């Protein structure tokens, strides 16, 4: 019997992820080593810099369709967002307003603002948000994929919340305040960050998917991410007042229905799952088919 070797999206580096998602040989990186684009601020902290400041940007094709694509490198400073890092992302997003690709694909993997450049990072986050909204208003979808080891926290989590369509694996954790931050600030009773199950149930891809914040839950495999992204390229997206009003109502309903519950298991039970404790063990496919078979209706 042959062992099937499956690659992990979670463990892949940024450049590998782009290689998995883009059509073979189609990726053209923008601003390569000739323009170093390193952080001008890290040296004073004696922190080594990295070409491209932790984010790879460029243009590619997916199933023959032109896209802009970026990938944060979680292994460099936790994908943290500083001045040059954010500027590179903003540059790609604003460029895409001119080049008008089929979509902009963002492979996020970041703990948020880089504290050594906190002010630059914070402003950069909101400049990215503005550029995302510019694209959405221009009818160019911004598709987020989350499945790296840093997840998306702080400003990166908020940026993800501004995208048109979110694809995530169960391993993807998306939030604003990380569990450690909540525990440090509010005490271990507020959030025990060492309780891995609690952390995953709360911020992980499944909970985000069951609330429809994540649009598509995929397995932790490059091919699953590629297929989901390719499938999302033709979806109709964009922002209208009606959609914002509907979202407002959805978020109010969520608070009214689940706002007093302090555990994802209780919420999933209230959503209609008879055995919510089985959800963490399900694969993405199993969870999706459970939903389709009507358990959750």
């Amino acid at each position, binding site marked *: 019997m042959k062992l099937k070797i499956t690659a992990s999206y979670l463990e892949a580096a940024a450049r590998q992820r782009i290689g998995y998602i883009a059509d073979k040989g189609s990726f053209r990186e923008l601003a390569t080593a000739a323009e170093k684009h390193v952080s001008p601020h890290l040296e004073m902290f004696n922190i080594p810099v990295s070409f491209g400041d932790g984010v790879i940007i460029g243009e590619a094709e997916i199933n023959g369709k032109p896209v802009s694509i970026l990938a944060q490198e979680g292994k460099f400073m936790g994908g943290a967002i500083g001045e040059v890092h954010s500027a*590179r992302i903003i*540059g790609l997003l604003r460029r895409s307003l001119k080049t008008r690709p089929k979509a902009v694909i963002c492979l996020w993997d970041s703990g948020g603002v880089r504290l050594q450049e906190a*002010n*630059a990072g*914070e402003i950069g986050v909101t400049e990215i948000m503005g550029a995302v909204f510019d694209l959405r208003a221009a009818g160019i979808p911004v598709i987020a994929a989350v499945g790296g080891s840093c997840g998306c926290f702080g400003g990166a989590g908020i940026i993800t*919340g501004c995208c048109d369509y979110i694809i995530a694996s169960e391993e993807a954790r998306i939030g604003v305040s990380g569990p450690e931050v909540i525990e440090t600030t509010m005490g271990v009773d507020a959030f025990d960050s060492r309780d891995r199950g609690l952390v995953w149930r709360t911020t992980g891809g499944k909970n985000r998917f069951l609330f429809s914040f994540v649009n598509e839950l995929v397995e932790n495999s490059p091919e699953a991410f590629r297929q989901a992204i390719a499938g999302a390229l033709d979806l109709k997206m964009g922002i209208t007042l009606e959609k914002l009003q509907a979202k407002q109502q959805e978020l109010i309903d969520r608070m009214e229905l689940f706002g007093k519950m302090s555990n994802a298991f209780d919420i999933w039970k209230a959503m209609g799952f008879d055995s919510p404790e089985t959800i963490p063990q399900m694969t993405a496919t199993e969870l999706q088919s459970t939903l389709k078979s009507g358990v959750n209706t």
Partner: protein
Amino acid sequence: MKFDTLLNELFPNGFQIEKEGSIVSGSAICGNQRLALIGTVDHTLIGIDEIIRLSRIFLKIIKEQPGIPILMLVDNNGQRMALREELLGLPEYIGHLAAVQDYARRNGHKVISLIYGNAVAGGFIAFGMGAQTRIYAVDGASPYVMNLPAISRVTKLPLEKLENLSRTIPVFAPGCNNFYKMGGLTDIWHGNLAACLETALKEYSSIDSRAELGRQRGGRREAINTINAIINA
């Protein structure tokens, strides 16, 4: 600055406000223009309840008073750090509030924010910097991401080193002047606030020029060059 003092100084020609918890809405006259007000008080934390109230007010203004300038009066101590917020999806709630603010700006409302108290981290992003192109602070206000002792704890960098660097470098330390140098504040208001606001309404632009401002003011020398190099690559 105290909220009541702020209102009296900004609007000598009158204003009316309603409070719901720490969320304030209302209207006021500036020069010969009417504007809508949305604000927060008491250094509130920005959690999902606050966000839903704020976005509801924005949506109501967009529907009932199309095109009216909107002034956001900002005072918060950051996002609410709680299991409940994270469980229900705070990034989605903040993303929604950001989208609503963006929609207003894109549909003829001048959206201006004025920090009169604190503006902290995710709270600053959610309510404050969402105005994108026109963000002001009253002299003495406190915008920041994290205070230096906390940055020191998280980054393991010695506090003394951070304090020394922060005397000359605006990139990480709290405060209006630092955010101004980074291009994150359009201006810092001193003196006659009513006149400052009137000027701000006249000079309003919906173009995000913060990276360029950061270069001109010396706080972000690389951002705009990097952005432009990529746009033109």
